């Protein structure tokens, strides 16, 4: 039983799926930046006499997500009409799923290892997105608009609505849940999961338990466009409800909007009729019947799930949980890292370099890893040189910049690093080696008395010479000279 005054949070998440066409017609889903009302047709404009036909890919994506969540996939489900009157909905109903959703049950893990919590999923269903309203008031406020402008480009874009059980106890757990779900849909390749762009939208239900631990009145909070906003909105709402109850007031069952600028939630006045959606089965659509083969095919297409991948990185590559979390946040980064491992990179060094240098460049250039020019092969060439000591870390960072900017291999970058005349070789190099050995007498002695079975100390000396030469020496020549002197 819950303790009194405990927050109880449930989430409803709408995820736009990355299909090319809409859920029930062949119009493009690519609406961002498109000229208003260009991706429209008689079906998604709700013109009479048209019939919706379900997009196979949208069903595949939703089934794949359901399977990844461990939900039971319904082999025979149906579409309902959710009726409400609003200009962003040209048919005056949204095609959705009601009493027989595509997937039921399942769970999503939040938290790390020892305090891992599996949050249960209530359901997952398919529905269509609505159009967009642009308000014409000079101050842009809804209430002061003279009229509204409607763009139906987004209307009919496939959504899956995923509902969690009210099992989240804190705003940070809610945030974790959304970020894990976002990670999942990205790994599955079914959505870009971008909250700012609106391809992943979160509504939260929140209540506080009463004196005997019984569930309190639910308040719905909407309009949170980032993980940070979600967390802040819930924190605000918990404090507001606690204050309300502290003053002996009742909590009103209502929908409140998060105002990110002001940092408050605002009530939308009296909505007693708003929830009368008069659902009924859509007679235009036959039941959605899937074969077991269809579902099994989707199961076969599931990639390694992000939380499993993270655990494997920790186990196999001895990464810290933090390193593994960062590397598995985006599928592209995880793939890049794994390619580096296959190229023979030292797992810790590769993790470090990707977390710091590679991700810094991605941030600076505002690009994704998919657009990152430097191949894992070339990148690993650099890591290997650091490993052998042929290149110092400082020099490596310089070389890395060059390699990224001009897509060079490490050798090409080394060549470019200095003019050929600046190359240190022959007697100059020999002098430099002697200088280094002079400073590192202890190491030399250790090598000469056989305390360097793995050759690590030799590599260390080689690295020091390379650093001394500012990378202008040839590591092979350095090793040769070192051998001549040390094995004399």
């Amino acid at each position, binding site marked *: 039983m819950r303790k009194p005054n405990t927050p109880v949070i449930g989430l409803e998440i709408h995820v736009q799926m990355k299909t090319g066409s809409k859920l029930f017609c062949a119009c493009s889903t690519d609406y961002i930046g498109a000229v208003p009302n260009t991706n429209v047709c008689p079906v998604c404009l709700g013109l009479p006499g048209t019939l919706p036909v379900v*997009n196979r890919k949208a069903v595949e994506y939703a089934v794949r997500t359901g399977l990844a969540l461990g939900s039971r996939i319904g082999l025979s489900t149906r579409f309902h009409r959710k009726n409400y009157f609003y200009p962003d909905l040209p048919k005056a109903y949204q095609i959705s799923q009601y009493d027989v959703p595509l997937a039921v049950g399942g769970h999503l893990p939040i938290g790390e290892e020892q305090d891992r919590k599996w949050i249960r999923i209530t359901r997952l269903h398919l529905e269509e997105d609505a159009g967009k309203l642009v308000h014409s008031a000079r101050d842009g406020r809804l209430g002061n608009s003279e009229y509204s402008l409607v763009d139906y480009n987004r209307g009919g874009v496939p959504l899956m609505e995923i509902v969690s059980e009210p099992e989240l106890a804190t705003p940070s757990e809610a945030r974790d849940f959304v970020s894990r779900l976002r990670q999942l849909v990205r790994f599955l390749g079914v959505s870009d999961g971008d909250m700012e762009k609106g391809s992943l939208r979160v509504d939260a239900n929140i209540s506080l338990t009463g004196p005997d631990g019984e569930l309190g009145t639910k308040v719905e909070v909407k309009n949170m466009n980032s993980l940070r906003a979600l967390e802040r909105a819930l924190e605000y709402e918990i404090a507001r409800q606690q204050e309300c109850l502290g003053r002996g007031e009742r909590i009103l069952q209502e929908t409140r909007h998060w105002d990110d600028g002001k940092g408050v939630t605002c009530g939308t006045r009296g909505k007693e009729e708003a929830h009368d959606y008069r659902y009924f089965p859509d007679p235009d659509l036959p039941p959605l019947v899937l074969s077991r083969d269809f579902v099994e095919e989707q199961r076969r297409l599931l990639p390694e799930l992000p939380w499993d991948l993270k655990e494997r990185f920790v186990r196999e590559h001895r990464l810290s949980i933090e390193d593994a979390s960062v590397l598995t946040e985006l599928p592209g980064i995880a793939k890049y890292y794994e390619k580096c491992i296959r190229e023979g990179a030292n797992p810790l060094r590769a993790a470090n370099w990707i977390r710091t240098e590679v991700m810094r460049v991605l941030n600076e250039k505002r690009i994704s890893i998919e657009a990152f020019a430097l191949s894992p092969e070339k990148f690993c060439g650099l890591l290997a040189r650091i490993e052998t000591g042929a290149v110092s870390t400082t020099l490596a960072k310089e070389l890395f910049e060059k390699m990224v900017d001009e897509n060079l291999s490490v050798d090409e970058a080394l060549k470019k690093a200095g003019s050929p005349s600046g190359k240190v070789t022959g007697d100059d190099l020999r002098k430099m080696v002697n200088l280094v050995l002079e400073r590192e007498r202890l190491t030399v002695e250790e090598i000469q008395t056989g305390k360097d079975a793995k050759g690590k100390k030799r590599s260390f000396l080689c690295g020091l010479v390379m650093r001394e030469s500012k990378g202008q020496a040839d590591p092979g020549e350095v090793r040769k000279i070192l051998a001549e002197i040390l094995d004399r």
Partner: protein
Amino acid sequence: MPIGKDEILRIARLGRLFVSEEEVGPLQRHLNGILEHFERLKRLDLEGIDPFALEEEATGFLREDAVSAWAGREEVLQQAPNREGDFFRVPRILEENEEEVSPDERR
């Protein structure tokens, strides 16, 4: 339970339909007729019958995810009661609890 006048008016309001005083009576009779028919259907013994039994054969056809553009958008925009450039223009959105506008004013 037959539908009363209030229920008729509520349904009309939800659908943003204007129903005059004279229309309430006939609508009430009409809708109650439909409901009576469903009451009769409800009395049938359907124990053990799959509600989807007759639909299985007409299972849904799934469309491949192919994009094609439609050429008629200009025509539709032109026929809209109001347009503004590339947009459909609609009356300002009512805040809850605000006064209802009559159907004629909405145009």
